[in-house]
């Protein structure tokens, strides 16, 4: 009797363990819940900050109201979390129907290669998305079917928000000292010297986290190169090199600024958020970063801020780093693809544009014509900047998309450059080594 009890309990334990290891039940095994015809759309997004989250909640509620019987089950994750979990989740039959998938080769490219994302070309026609976003925007969310070539082929995602990297400035400090927003790069550099001479930190910046140093460098680089070059570099076509006089010059300018003390004291030991908090508290006349900072600078502060594009060299039109935010994509094996596409269309509607703008975020789509939105503020400045580069066809790229390891390489090499360990020539050579190795691995 005793023996049998032991044996039974062990078998039971084994069964539980084995069933836990077994493959998850396929959707056909799950009987529909009796009495409800409710259709559930599972959506993963990364809009976790309060004001962003409210926009999504509102849009979801309005979507449910317009689609009786549909319920949206939302899961919010921080971007790093989303990136590490969404890949595996998209392989599951009960994974998210719609998920935000980061652009670039390591994320969207790898998922396309694995055949996990639904091509959206038919919906592009059905919903006329060609009138909502430009081909330049579409190419940022496009890959060839094998996931190898970036920027062309099928559309795999739609982005609700837009971003542009430029200069935030403290209006109070500018007014008090009688400084004007510079219109040429020459003026900008003169202003940096003037601010420094007045005993104020010209550019609030910290490179401890690394990634924002890419923006500081690349914002200058964008003023020196052509759109073709930036496109070729980012999408890995036409065999361009990183080791060019323009890139070396941009690195030299960045280094000169560091040596002239234009950045925050001790900037190599200051993190991105800390440097922004210092700027928000009134330490530093300017900071160079993306428009995503605007909502934060519009609340909980007694300072007033403005935004302008890093001005181009005299007589030239400069590019600016810009693009669209992380796109929504559809799981290829989802059984609710039509509904999911409708949801995507909802997320890039004029209504969505209005809600994003109210939250201080740049929408990727045009605002409704009758919009009564207040634009005489920081948000209006970023909107102007975004419209300016769009109309001038001067929207550049985040260059860290160029190769799977470009981000790590750029961060390490820029820290070496700014730390005085290497020279601008060392910098462009080291980054070119990464780039050339990648191009070679692709051509095999």
């Amino acid at each position: 009797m005793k023996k049998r009890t032991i044996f039974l309990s062990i078998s039971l334990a084994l069964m539980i363990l084995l069933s836990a290891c077994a493959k998850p039940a396929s959707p056909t095994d799950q009987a529909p819940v009796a009495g409800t015809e409710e259709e559930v759309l599972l959506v993963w997004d990364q809009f976790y900050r309060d004001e962003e989250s409210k926009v999504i909640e509102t849009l979801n509620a309005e979507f449910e109201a317009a689609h009786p019987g549909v319920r949206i089950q939302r899961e919010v994750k921080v971007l790093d979390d989303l990136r590490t979990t969404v890949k595996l989740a998209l392989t599951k039959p009960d994974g998210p129907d719609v998920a935000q998938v980061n652009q670039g080769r390591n994320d969207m490219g790898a998922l396309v290669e694995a055949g996990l994302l639904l091509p959206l070309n038919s919906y592009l026609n059905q919903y006329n998305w060609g009138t909502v976003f430009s081909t330049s925007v579409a190419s940022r969310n496009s890959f060839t079917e094998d996931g190898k070539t970036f920027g062309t082929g099928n559309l795999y995602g739609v982005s609700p928000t837009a971003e542009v990297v430029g200069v935030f400035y403290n209006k109070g400090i500018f007014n008090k000292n009688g400084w004007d927003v510079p219109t040429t790069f020459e003026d900008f550099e003169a202003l940096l010297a003037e601010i420094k001479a007045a005993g104020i930190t010209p550019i609030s910046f910290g490179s401890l986290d690394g990634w924002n140093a890419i923006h500081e460098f690349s914002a200058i680089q964008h003023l020196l190169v052509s759109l073709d070059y930036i496109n070729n570099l980012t999408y890995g076509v036409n065999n361009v090199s990183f080791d060019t006089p323009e890139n070396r010059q941009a690195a030299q300018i960045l280094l000169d600024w560091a040596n002239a003390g234009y950045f925050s004291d001790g900037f190599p030991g200051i993190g991105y958020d800390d440097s922004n908090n210092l700027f928000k508290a009134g330490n530093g006349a300017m900071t160079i970063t993306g428009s995503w900072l605007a909502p934060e600078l519009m609340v909980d502060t007694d300072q007033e801020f403005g935004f302008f594009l890093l001005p181009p060299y005299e007589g030239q039109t400069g590019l600016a780093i810009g693009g669209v935010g992380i796109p929504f994509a559809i799981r290829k094996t989802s059984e609710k693809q039509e509904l999911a596409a409708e949801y995507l269309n909802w997320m890039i509607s004029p209504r969505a544009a209005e809600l994003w703008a109210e939250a201080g975020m740049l929408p990727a789509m045009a605002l409704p014509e009758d919009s009564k939105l207040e634009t005489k503020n920081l948000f209006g400045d970023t909107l102007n900047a975004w419209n300016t580069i769009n109309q001038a066809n001067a929207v550049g790229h985040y260059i860290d998309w160029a190769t799977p390891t470009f981000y790590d390489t750029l961060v390490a090499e820029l820290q070496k450059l700014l730390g005085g360990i290497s020279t601008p020539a060392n910098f462009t050579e080291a980054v070119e080594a990464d780039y050339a190795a990648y191009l070679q691995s692709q051509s095999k």
Partner: protein
Amino acid sequence: MANVTKKYPGESRWKGWWYLLPALLVYLLFTFLPILETIRSSFYQWDGFSQNKVWIGLANYVELFSDPKFHNALRNNLIFVIFYSLIPILIGLFLASMLSRRPIPGFAFFRTALFLPQVISMVVVGVIWRWMFNPTFGPINSLLRQIGLDVFAISWLGDFTWALPAVGSIGTWVQYGFCMVLFLAGMQHIQDEYYEAASLDGANAFKQFIHITVPGLRSEIAVALVTTIIAALRVFDLVYTTTRGGPGETTMVTGFLIYRAAFTNNRIGYAAAIATVLTLIILIISLFIRRYQQQGSEEST
């Protein structure tokens, strides 16, 4: 002989093994199988989610051993051993001998206070020290400036020379309390007679420490060595929350390389190869220390 065991009083012995089974199953399922799976993955090229899993034999290992990033990371791990293991053990020995030999008022308070860093989550420790080291508003540089040492008020975590010692010293701060408590417990087993005899022979406090306390703590020191060296070799969270391997690659460690390969570069096979090599290194070092400890205890008996 066989007859004797058969007639032995009491129930048969094999039944006892059943009691091990639940724990054994859990161990197999959650520790042993994942280790085997990691080793197996290290022979593949795999992104971690697609069907596309290609057997490439030892290619990951060949690449690993010629990868300068891995060499650099491993060297940094060894430097971390100094900060995570050697210095904390020395501090621990010193504090333990201070606290154990004569009654000190508030002994329990000191013991708890000094042990406290050990119980704080590593992520919290990282965030706290990132603030402490902040060049603009961190208390370390504020203090240095106030006492006139402005030249030393550098940007610690962003400095190519000082970032590694700075992150390492956070490890020291975390580990020394553990060593101290371990040694305090060990010292209670050393009989007072030894010290009495030694002082009658004219040995001073330092000689007593070297010839009685340290040999008496042989097994505690071995335990402290093993645990702190393992902590130094697999450090990840502290680097992730403070410097992310920067500036340049000066604080890059193998744990961070594994994370980067697996989760940002989609190279599960390569990450598994690094993890396997790291595990082997840790195993060898642990065995080596145990061997030394056993040899020592044989000698002393």
